[in-house]
């Protein structure tokens, strides 16, 4: 982590104004970093089962309404907006580092009939253009989604065009499977990521 705070005065959005499918209470809880009961719905286990393609088979257990929804952009947003910024105890949603219109879900292999694979594209907007923590934030988003979603989802995290001075470099790193895998075995880096994800659970 950088030793100095790179952006000491970021713009912060009111958490209550952010789009969410969670109740506002849960949203603000997630945003402030406490672990609420509702937030725990989004733990890894909730998504460890694979989802049927296209059709959404209803489950008998009525208390799992949230899980029965097909995974859509809003759900992805709810998974990652509560991640904390590595520099500030503020969520990525509140900092507008991630936003709902910058999330897209598309078939990974559109030419393959019946393919279950879906690619989730997330564009992140670092708070300042030279933020060296952009890679860490991107990695945090990637880790959060890969841990939460079934394996048929591929995660593509990029810096939003024009928002970062070294976007191309960061994007290449985040897209490199081998580098990401190695980063996940780096204790120091994972410590930082774990701290960012604390507010998600």
């Amino acid at each position, binding site marked *: 982590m950088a030793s100095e705070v790179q952006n000491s005065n970021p713009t912060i959005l009111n958490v209550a104004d952010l789009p969410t499918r969670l109740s506002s209470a849960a949203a603000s809880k997630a945003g402030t970093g406490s672990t609420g009961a509702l937030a725990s719905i989004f733990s890894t286990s909730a998504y460890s089962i694979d989802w049927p393609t296209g059709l959404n088979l209803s489950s008998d257990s009525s208390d799992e309404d949230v899980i029965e929804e097909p995974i859509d952009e809003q759900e992805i947003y709810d998974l990652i907006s509560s991640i904390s910024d590595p520099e500030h105890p503020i969520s990525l949603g509140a900092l507008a580092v991630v936003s709902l219109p910058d999330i897209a879900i598309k078939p*990974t292999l559109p*030419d393959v009939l019946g393919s279950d*694979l879906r690619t989730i594209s997330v564009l992140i907007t670092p708070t300042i253009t030279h933020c060296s923590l952009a890679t860490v934030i991107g990695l945090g988003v990637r880790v959060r989604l890969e841990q939460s979603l079934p*394996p048929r989802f591929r995660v593509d995290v990029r810096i939003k065009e024009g928002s970062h001075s070294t976007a191309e470099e960061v994007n290449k790193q985040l897209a490199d499977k081998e580098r990401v*895998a190695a980063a996940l*075995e780096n204790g120091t880096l994972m410590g930082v990521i774990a701290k960012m994800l604390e507010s998600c659970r």
Partner: protein
Amino acid sequence: MPNPPTPPTHHLTLLSSLSPPSTERTWQTAPHPRLPIVATCSADKTIRIYSLQNFCLLSTIAGGHKRSVRTAAWKPHVTGESVLASGSFDATAGIWRRWDHYSDSSNLNLSTTHGDDSEEDDEEEEWRFAVLLDGHDSEVKSVAWSASGMLLATCSRDKSIWIWEDLDDGDNNFETVAVMQEHEGDVKCVAWHPAEECLVSGSYDDTIRVWREDVDDWGQVACLRGHGGTVWAVEFEGIPFVSGLTGKEEEQEEVGKWRALSGPRIVSCSDDRSVRVWRRIPKETSPAAAAAAAAAGMPSIIRPTGLDEDWELEAVLPAVHDLAVYSVAWSRRTGLVASTGADGRVVVYQERVVEGQQPQAGPEAKLPPTEWVVVAVLIGAHGIYEVNHVAWAKRADRGRDVSKEEEVLITTADDGTVKVWTLGQ
């Protein structure tokens, strides 16, 4: 995805999965040069040795690496013993040894203990950790032994390639011969020329580089640009030139002559989704030089002045992959090329002489044009999972046709599974 010009003529059929699989991501599976066994590298920090006769796990090499094992390579030309080099995200390369017993015990049970010698025998059955090669600053991505088995190349995210000499002094000593740092990004892969001490590497900097030793110093002799993304794998073609060509015999012969002149080609695959074939432009075109080159690629004693080589892109193979291509394998038995990657496809390509173009004679002579066609496509080889590696190996199970040297394709995937496939018409 543009459709291949001709429909695939072959199909890949699952022969077996290797069992039991790793529970974590597997990166690579290296077939043994002599024995019907393979080494699979896993994110669970182990290397698994499986039999290609019954597809079962023979042993697990654990406790050597502190992080994911990314790569492994068998030392060639060792008899009575197997020597395996491994590379890990823990920044080290390991050397492992084991006396050969697998070949005569194709049964499941490895611990064939004999009476009171059992303890000693058990020890002999084990993989012995020989030495840890320490030097890289970060993850080791690829390791490769030279054709003679004298040299080991290792490469890393630290942008360097190290060449180590196996002193073979019985004491497991390795000497650092060279450290090459010309690449501007992670070096993802290294591979050796099939006969000469010539190395090729692919990198995160999107380039492929060729390296040779000049008197005492190893240096870059060529830099191949063209890929629009990380070069994930490179491999030399085998020698002598094995024709995967179809077409008239005299045409094939003519192509073979030209191939001998340029030397083995290089195949590469990339994050840009393409698979490319590169050819060295021969320096000397005199008949004498051609004959010398044709005489099986031994390094000439007197080198031509200047080691720089000119390499050109010969072909971009038909585009089939929708995502990054992680691995490419050029069969030294059949000349077929196989590729695989993030889209889960396995593609097999064959080179053909373009029909109706007679080779010209005399000084105007040039290489008869060839083209690559897709002969087999397998979608979702490992279901929804990405496939990290593909390799050709000699078929060794009971179902093989003993009258010919059959080959199998081995694919290694993110879900920890390794599958063995046959290619049929």
